[in-house]
């Protein structure tokens, strides 16, 4: 069951890579694969148990898979230290402001839409 779902995920990733090389060089293969799988699920009208199992198993360990890329920071310690405060300041302040703004705006719009529906 798990294997069948995993096969589909890998196939869509490979399909995404082919399309990336042939048609869409600005979008990475996995993102194209995700969009294609999403469209396929919409067309099919349901997500099989096997693909749900494979997806939830992989996504459970997503933080683990992100550890190796995060270790890559060690290569750039010098370049980062040179512009340290500019980089940290820009990253932290812009993250905090845009994170709070995103959450606040989204919640505001959700509540407004709900109110409008109740009125109508």
């Amino acid at each position, binding site marked *: 069951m798990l294997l069948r779902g995993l096969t589909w995920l890998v196939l869509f990733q490979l399909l995404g890579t082919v399309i990336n090389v042939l048609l869409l060089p*600005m979008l990475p293969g996995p993102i194209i694969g995700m969009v294609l799988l999403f469209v396929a699920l919409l067309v099919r009208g349901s997500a099989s148990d096997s693909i749900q199992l494979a997806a939830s198993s992989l996504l459970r360990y997503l933080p683990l898979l992100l*550890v190796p890329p995060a270790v*890559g920071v060690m290569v750039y310690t010098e370049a*980062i230290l040179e*512009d340290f405060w500019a980089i940290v300041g820009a990253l932290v302040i*812009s*993250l905090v402001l845009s994170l*709070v703004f995103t959450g606040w705006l989204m*919640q505001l*719009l959700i509540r407004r839409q709900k109110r409008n529906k109740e009125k109508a």
Partner: protein
Amino acid sequence: MTILQWHAAWQALIHHPLFGVGITLAAFQLAFAAYEKTRWVFLQPVLLSALMVIGILLLCGLSYPDYSASSRLLTVLLGPATVALAVPLYLNMRRIRELFVPIVVTLLLAGSLATALGMALAWAFGAERMILMTLAPKSVTSPIAMLVAEQIGGVVALAAVFVMITGVLGAILGPELLRRFGVQHPAARGMALGLTAHAVGTAQALQEGDECGAFAALAMSLMGVLTAVLLPLVVSLLL
């Protein structure tokens, strides 16, 4: 046992093609257990295990390319995991369709803010153009960020580092910040985490629940696609 034999065994151990996978798995489980036990935000599992792995590599005298080669088994799964995000997205489609207008408006306004603010602040703090162009795609998932940084004249590998720092910061600070500012709706929390902190934020959002995770995945992918298409265009028109 002679010292020479011990040395040969040590070399065989640290250069084994599974050494990277082994230390990553061990570090991650330790970090995860520490996080579960204390719930202390700075013990964010990705950050803590990355620091542990860096420590081990330095102690063993291994370089990042060594580690990168021996942890391939894990990184190669990032592709299928990205594809897998389509599933929670699909399963929450009904909720997403209901909130279509809020999603599009938030994406356009907050997405532009996240990108422009980072660049403006770095410029104000006196960072050079190369750093600015490398910072621009910081809010999107690293493959897209690396591609975009290259197109607009930034440093590809450094872009991945900024992406990673932003993601880890978002996962550490995000949940608490959102709570302080009264953002309780799972869709809004997911949207904020996925839009500003991409995959690491999405991983955090998945821990909060299905709906939160689905909106984070949605925000992450839309933000990624939008950045990949629009940012090179905007930069070539304005700067």
